[in-house]
């Protein structure tokens, strides 16, 4: 299996063009646009009031709980993708003798995730308090 870099030229070029545009456009704006800094202009917007306290405050933990819950599902999905791509095709990576075993293993794996999901629901993780 030889590696042919030419297949990836378009990807490299695309990245260069997109990142180049992302850099060049604000640079143009920097050259054209006026720049006159005043203290009031630099104040964070707080609906016309003077800002009270720092914006980087403690944040509600429920966002993190949900993020952690979803990380579990994200990892689960990573396992499912290769299986989904090779499940039905003939002559795929999975030998045909193991196909049924792999199929039921994936179903069992999903069942464990479903049990965890129901447990989390019963425990009240999904209540937005």
């Amino acid at each position: 299996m030889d590696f042919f870099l030419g297949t990836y030229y378009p990807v490299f070029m695309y990245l260069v063009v997109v990142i180049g545009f992302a850099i060049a456009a604000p640079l143009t704006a920097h050259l054209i646009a006026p720049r006159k800094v005043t203290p009031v202009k630099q104040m964070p917007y707080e609906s016309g009031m003077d800002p009270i306290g720092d914006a980087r405050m403690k944040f509600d933990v429920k966002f993190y709980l949900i993020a952690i819950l979803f990380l579990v599902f994200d990892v689960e999905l990573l396992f499912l993708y290769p299986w989904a791509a090779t499940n039905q095709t003939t002559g795929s990576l999975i030998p045909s003798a193991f196909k049924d075993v792999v199929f039921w293993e994936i179903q069992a794996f999903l069942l464990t995730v479903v049990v965890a999901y129901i447990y989390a629901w019963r425990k009240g993780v999904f209540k937005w308090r």
Partner: protein
Amino acid sequence: MIRQEDLREDILNGELTNLFRWFLGLPEDSLSPFPGLMAAGVAVGMLVGFVALSAVFFIWLERKVAGRIQDRLGPTRVGGKFGWLQTIADGIKLLVKEDLIPRDADHILFRLGPYIAFCGAFCAFIALPFAQGWTAYGTGTGAFAIGVFFILAVMSTEVFGIILAGYGSGSKWSLFGGMREAAQMVGYEIPMSLCVLVPVIVAGSMDLGKISANQAGWFWEWYVFRDPFTFVAFWTYFTCATAACKRAPFDLAEAESELVAGFHTEYSGLRWSFFFMAEYAAMFAVSGVAVLLFGGGWHLGLPVWTLVGLSPELSQVLNWPSNVLNIGNAINAGVFIVKCWVLVFVQIWVRWTLPRLRIDQVMMTCIKYLLPISCFLMLGVSLWEVFARPYLGDYFKFVLAGLVLISIIITAMRVFTTPMKLPTPGIDAPWGPRIPAEFTIKRS
């Protein structure tokens, strides 16, 4: 399984590569890298240009559609009749506008946010095939073997830009918007990916080109109609994709009635417009994925060429000699783009029709409804493929496609035969709900 040698063949025999080989006077089988490089350059230029232009077009379209839905006109002045140059004028204004960075902002993160959002949304187009083999990656019949996965992965980097913008701005509104966006994106990624798995299981491939090529022929070959699970998966995917693009009714990150402007409160000028280019590019990208996975890709749904007795593959019909330029593929790409525009229009339509949800409603819709539904769809389609399909055969798609067609015809007939007047005097609308005469405003 895709082999490097095949990819090498593809890039060496691509349409644009052949065009440049012909242009440079090189023989057909020459191994010089220049035609390939030039072809790559042109393909990339066309793609970036198309994405940027379509973003400009969608911004104008959104304002016009919003105007019509809210019974006003939208932009009318710039560029003549329909205000079609309005976005260009706005772009020039944004370019010459002062670029403010607030005092409390984290300067590096504040600058980095828009770039990451922009690059994340635009790089998804690398793997989006517009017609058979028309991707930036592999200008030939080349296939991106993991196209779907690549697009989902790259699109979800957009959220980093939003979080950085929200956190780096040093404003409370921005922080709220950024955190909401983070929770929402992390949540909606899961049902979206699970719904994407449904056609992947059916096709047995993550290659978008291959999935779309499987749906050639009549419209009942499209994966939407294949079985009940794919049908529901299409709607679930589209809902999640709307949320993942942070479009209304899920646009909690920039809820202007609560958070001023959410994560981009402190942005001005060109940096601000980068977020919007990213949003509209992402809208087109998710619509493209929906079309490729469920909606038949670049196939018209009516096998016109077969009916008139030509080769079934449109790309093989209108082929110049020596495979220089493939007009059939260009027509297919046009069909694909029109289908994507229809879905983008639906997203715009939904935005201006439905009210915004609350953040807890948004999150609970995802966790308690969309996640179990999409899990069920994924399981159901894998079981259907293994157990139901061998017995039921291939006939279910005719039933589903027929029912959908009949319901579309009935709806269209009802819509177009119902007379209607808008409350504004003097403007007649072609269709819509009937408004009783006592509620319309009389012209004085």
